[in-house]
């Protein structure tokens, strides 16, 4: 039975599903990476995702236009981000709690809207699989990587893009400086507030897409609390990735792959209690960090509101 795990079908299955599972994590965690690099911890990701998921679903169902759904999810996420930015930057509220506040708000409001506007669980025709020409015909690799829906591709393309923005642009330089030493950035005329607004809104926007990727691309339904902790895992993955986009990618893939492996372990009837199998991705994610000695410190100003003059 264990040897079944190494059959081609299973390996392809694990990889393909790992990549799908990683998609929402990538959107949310890359967005969170920007926020944290600029010194803002947003624990409201899950709430933003839920509202994004609902909005995308509702708009898609009403208009039949999936891209309009994605766009409205982005807007809703951005608005949540804007609110979060106002509260943490202007009002200098403790980031940890305000994030939890926004999470609860998103969790409740998305469910409330769902009950009042939709009333019942429905399905939508989401983004179809989009086989990349040529690439999707490659044996094995094609099936794993290139027969996914468009939002999956975009999420992966986001990783190098984020890396590029953070490390190669003046904006990225400002973001990194603001997250490490806002006083220094401020003294050079960099507006800490503007940078943080930007990253938090960007984070919200990406969380919105993360939600949309669930409700109109991967699952094609909306259900109350459908993210079920996914947003918090995404935040954790930012720490796993040590605030580096490629590190985050590694974490998201690891977590998702082990999760799909875990599903296969059960399907193949390998005699492990189901609860223990479900623990696997969580344990392994920690273990990988234990063996890979990383010495990266969190951005020094993370969670610290910036105010000039004490």
């Amino acid at each position, binding site marked *: 039975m264990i040897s079944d795990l190494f059959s081609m079908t299973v390996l392809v299955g694990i990889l393909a599903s790992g990549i799908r599972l990683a998609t929402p994590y990538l959107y949310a965690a890359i967005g969170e990476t920007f926020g944290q690099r600029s010194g803002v911890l947003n624990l409201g990701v899950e709430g933003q995702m839920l509202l994004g998921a609902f909005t995308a679903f509702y708009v898609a169902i009403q208009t039949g236009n999936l891209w309009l759904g994605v766009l409205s999810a982005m807007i809703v996420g951005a608005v949540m981000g804007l609110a979060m930015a106002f*509260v943490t930057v202007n009002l200098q509220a403790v980031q940890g709690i305000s994030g*939890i506040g926004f999470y609860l708000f998103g969790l*409740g409001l998305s469910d409330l809207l769902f009950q009042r506007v939709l009333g019942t669980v429905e399905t939508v025709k989401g983004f179809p699989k989009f086989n990349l020409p040529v690439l999707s015909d490659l044996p094995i690799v094609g099936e794993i990587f290139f027969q996914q829906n468009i939002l999956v591709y975009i999420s992966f393309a986001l990783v190098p893009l984020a890396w590029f923005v953070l490390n190669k642009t003046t904006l990225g330089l400002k973001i990194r400086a603001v997250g490490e030493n806002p006083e220094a950035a401020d003294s050079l005329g960099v507006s800490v507030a503007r940078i943080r607004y930007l990253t938090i809104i960007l984070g919200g926007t990406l969380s919105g897409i993360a939600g949309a990727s669930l409700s109109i691309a991967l699952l094609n339904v909306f259900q109350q609390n459908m993210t079920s902790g996914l947003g918090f895992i995404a935040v954790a993955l930012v720490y796993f990735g040590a605030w580096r986009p490629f590190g985050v990618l590694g974490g998201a893939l690891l977590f998702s792959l082990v999760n799909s492996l875990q599903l296969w372990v059960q399907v193949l009837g390998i005699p492990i209690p189901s609860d223990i199998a479900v623990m696997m991705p969580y344990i392994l994610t920690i273990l990988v960090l234990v063996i890979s000695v990383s010495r990266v410190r969190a951005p020094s100003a993370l969670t610290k509101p910036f105010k000039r003059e004490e």
Partner: protein
Amino acid sequence: MSKPSQENWYAKLIDIALPIFATLAALIVGAVMLLLLNVNPIEAYAALWEGAFGSQNALAETLVKATPLLLVGLGICISFRGDVINIGGEGQMIVGAIIGTQVGLRMVDSPGWLVVPLALLAGFAGGALWGGIPGLLKAYFNVNEILSTVMMNAIAVQLMTFLLRGPMIDPAQAELASKIPQTARLMENFRLPRWIPTRLHLGALIAVVLAVLVYILLWRTTWGYRIRSVGQNPDASAYAGIQVKNYIVLALVLSGAFAGLAGVMQVYGVNYRMITDGSGSGFTGRAGFNGIVAALFGQLHPLGTIPASILFGALLVGANKMQRVVQVPSALVIALNGLVVVFVVSSEIWRRKRQRRRLAAEMALQEGAPGESDGSEAAHYGGEVD
């Protein structure tokens, strides 16, 4: 000199009232939502108040709800002061409860005065264990504690379902087809004393006493001094000879221990057994998270966490009552909680501003009075050359 002190008194009162105003502001926003749902907000909020403070029983329920928040919050005060962000309260509550419950299930022949304290200690130890693991991982393997505690929450939930539907299952349920994942009920004499006829149990009092002890720990002991110093500046602490790693572990161990205690108290004070609905929060009631909110509301001060827990407990209990009375979906209640949290933390800034303004005003007052060295003395050393 009576005037300044009187002003001070006013100022303090306004400071205290500030979060209450913020809560009211959030409720006004909530009122709009209620109106959209065709619910009379006044009726709804009357129910909320009634449910939180309206009767002896309501008040007791509020305190019952506040107890785990306070306990978890105390742990949070310790760890956050040590700059260790413990998000693992949920898992630590669960593991504390599991180990504490084992004591009650195994020592059935022992007297209650022995079992109950032992069980509470076991819960304390269980939470310490579940907090200690991320602590060790952080100190010795540089594994970020936010990541590990979030992951350990999920692991604890699965561990709980595994145990409750297998090794620890209620023998009565093991016989039945329903196989409810729950342990056997605790013996009558193993339960924390209650303030009959309410559910208010001794744990609430214990939690308040512990708040005082945590205050002493943090500001009156060398352990507390070191935890805070490591939290503020590990480099300087290392140079001062403090074993930074040990205190990182200690911060998480203690933080987890208090959450573990909160968990075991839910068993010995409220539910009298462990039950799971498959989620962590079914057992913890999200106290592992809400405790963080309470502690931060309390400015990470153990004594400040007491009123903060009560406020938050009242809100949770009152909102449930509101849901029953005016029949709004639980979703609205959750969204409303979120709003209150956001509004209250946002209101903090006014308090800080007021404080600053007050200090500045005081000083402007002092400047009027002659000081030790003033301009005339300075002039003695040389005037303007230009």
